């Protein structure tokens, strides 16, 4: 974690409202370290772009401070902040060639001709687009435009680069390739990157830390593994990766674990993560790959009926009914020791209490 003192970017109790009636960003606190790759992840309308725009200077915070390198930047106009930005639609200037686009930030900084040419060439080289210098943006493919947009945001050596869903318009394969390229550029240059996406796999692949946004708040801020393994609330559990949810009531809390009772009267043990206490409602979260077929000692065991089988080659996706929930997914490895399941069959499922996280009921 980054402490407030050596953080490069600090959001300090930031709020934002566009219309004076609803808060789009509610009390945002976030420290971003120097050289970090931080991703803002969240569903549409959760306020990610708004946060980025406040940082870039195109929106003003309704309340709170934003600090860049220790200095509040609320009163600094956008063009003096020195923040590189990659826009959702790239925003490459259509009337300029690729080279002119890249030269633009250097020209407004009044650099010399020779230096500009050298830097532009280097930036084009970095994104492997040297052959396209004299093309217009309209003559480039989506992926090529995206590279140029990244190169343009980096060409003037800003210490901080913001990217707002830069890969949103690309197809899956290209997107994965660009994810690696952006990641490598980040590692090579050591710039701080704030990256916005609503694609969770993109966030997991690229980020040092991920801030999960919902409803104008950061729900959880952690590195990808922690976020996936240890979601702190139901929204995060549901939003990141595949998740099985079971609603229940807390019976008793026993140290780290707790005893919960399902609506059909059966009980189970779960890791007490985010519950109010005995008698309160909770939502259990279990990753599909942590569920096993067959009874195991010390495991929670439950009867389940097979509703649907989907053959996926390396594993079989199995939809089951568990405690009245008909959307319970289990991934059965396609291995010889596993007997074939049939639709309608009743079998026993089991999982470790530690893999079953009791979270807020939402």
């Amino acid at each position, binding site marked *: 974690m980054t402490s407030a003192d050596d953080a490069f970017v600090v959001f300090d109790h930031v709020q934002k409202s566009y219309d004076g009636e609803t808060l789009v960003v509610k009390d945002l606190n976030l420290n971003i370290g120097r050289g970090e790759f931080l991703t803002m992840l969240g569903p549409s309308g959760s306020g990610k772009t708004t946060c980025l725009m406040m940082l*870039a*200077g*195109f929106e003003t915070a309704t309340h709170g401070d934003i600090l860049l390198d220790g200095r509040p930047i609320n009163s600094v*106009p*956008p*063009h*003096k*902040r*020195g*923040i*590189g*930005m990659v*826009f*959702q*639609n790239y*925003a*490459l*200037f*259509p*009337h300029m060639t690729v080279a002119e686009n890249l030269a*633009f*930030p250097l020209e*407004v*900084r009044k650099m010399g001709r020779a230096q500009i040419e050298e830097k532009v060439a280097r930036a084009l080289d970095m994104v492997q687009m040297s052959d396209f210098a004299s093309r217009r943006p309209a003559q480039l493919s989506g992926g090529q435009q995206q590279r140029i947009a990244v190169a*343009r*945001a980096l060409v*003037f050596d800003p210490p901080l680069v913001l990217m707002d869903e830069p890969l949103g318009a690309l197809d899956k394969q290209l997107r994965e390739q660009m994810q690696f390229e952006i990641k490598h550029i980040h590692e090579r240059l050591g710039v701080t990157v704030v990256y916005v996406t609503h694609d969770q796999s993109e966030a997991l692949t690229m980020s040092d830390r991920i801030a999960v946004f919902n409803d104008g708040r950061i729900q959880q801020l952690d590195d990808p593994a922690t976020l996936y393994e240890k979601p702190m609330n139901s929204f995060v559990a549901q939003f990141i990766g595949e998740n099985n949810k079971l609603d229940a009531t807390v019976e008793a809390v026993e140290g780290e674990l707790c005893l919960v009772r399902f609506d059909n009267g059966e009980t189970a043990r779960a890791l007490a993560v985010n519950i109010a206490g005995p008698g309160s409602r909770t939502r259990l979260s279990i990753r599909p790959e942590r569920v096993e077929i067959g009874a195991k000692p010390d495991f929670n065991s439950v009867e389940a009926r097979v509703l649907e089988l989907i053959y996926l080659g390396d594993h079989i996706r199995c939809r089951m009914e568990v405690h009245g929930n008909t959307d319970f997914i289990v991934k059965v490895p396609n291995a010889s020791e596993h007997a074939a399941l049939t639709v309608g069959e009743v079998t026993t499922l089991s999982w470790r209490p530690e893999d079953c996280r009791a979270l807020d009921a939402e």
Partner: protein
Amino acid sequence: MADRAEARDAPVVAPIGNKQASEAKMSDASANGGPVLAADGTPLKVSLRRAERRLRLRAFLLTAPLLGFILLTFIAPIGDMLFRSVENEIVADTLPRTVEALKDWDPASGQAPDEPVFRALYEDLKVAVAEKKHTQVGQRLNYEKSGISSVFRKTGRRIKRMDPDKPLKPQFVNADKDWGDVETWRVIKQFSPRFTDGYFLAALDMQRDAQGVHLRDEKDRIYLTLFWRTISLSAVITGMCLLLGYPVAWLLANLPARTSNLLMILVLLPFWTSLLVRTSAWKVLLQQQGVINDLLVGIGLIDDAHRLALINNQTGTIIAMTHILLPFMILPLYSVMKTVPPSYVRAAKSLGANDWTAFWRVYFPQTIPGIGAGAILCFILAIGYYITPELVGGTSGTFISNRIAYHISVSLNWGLAAALGSLLLILVLALYWAYDKIVGIDNVKLG
């Protein structure tokens, strides 16, 4: 349309570009080298054409009324105008024998023609006077040489008293001594062909006399001055419209919807009031005892003796026309600005450009299509404007169209009016061409 046709043709066209594919796919067609056949054995091209014929016929019938309307009310009058500007049949029709007889006469001889020509003229005029057409010829020729009109009128009255058995030349010269003048005959001979460039020469302030074609004296040049004034004032008006309209269009495109709708109504409001009313309102505002002068005197900016002449001169024309043409600049600008995403300016600023640089290097170039469209629209409208210059232009602020109107309704010299109109049309087309060469007409976006 072209795209669709291409897509449909693709299987047929492909074999031409790709020999191997053709042999694989259409072995029977390429085997005998004949055309590609449709399922029922008719050549594919024929059946395609047949299938499209109905579609095309229906499309044509649907647009036929409009085409007819345009042809009748737009193309035909323009054609008529172009024709009238060179048409000159009246001399040859009214004086056919004279024209024939004059063929052998050479004006360079310095002598009026001989008896046979006068005999022919006598015969022609007898018919013309009976049909009362001699005054029309006189009037037509009077455009070229003033005085001829009265020669014909006078002779028309005397023709009955002439004695065809005696030599006619002295009798004609006696009726009007101009018949003895070489110049009269030179004009008649010059304008006896059925087509003439005389109107165009006149419209360009040129004349043809014994020495050939040359410009009139500086003080007699009316039309060139008017053309120049029309072009330069239209350019000034277009410039003013751009200057005033650009910020308004920007506001329209960037304000929140509710405010911008209100502003749009204000922009369109002039369209809903009569042109005449608006122009008259400018009279009230701009005249020497008008609102603006009163105001300026009132706040002491000018004294009462030196009230500004804002109307019945070029200033009046510029002010009133700028106001009237402003929407034609704002609307295309607005529609273009509406399509420029705000992210471009934001991107420019994030790259370090200040407000001015972001505007000038990023926003402005992307609005050029709108500027082009607005400027062309304003300029072409201004160049042909009539009513406003007529009402507020006085003598120094009138346009070429006012002169055209004068020739159509007052002097009845339709040929000259047509020539002026044709020149105006040519001018507009030339400007359009120049614009296409310099800026590119694809760069114009009207909406």
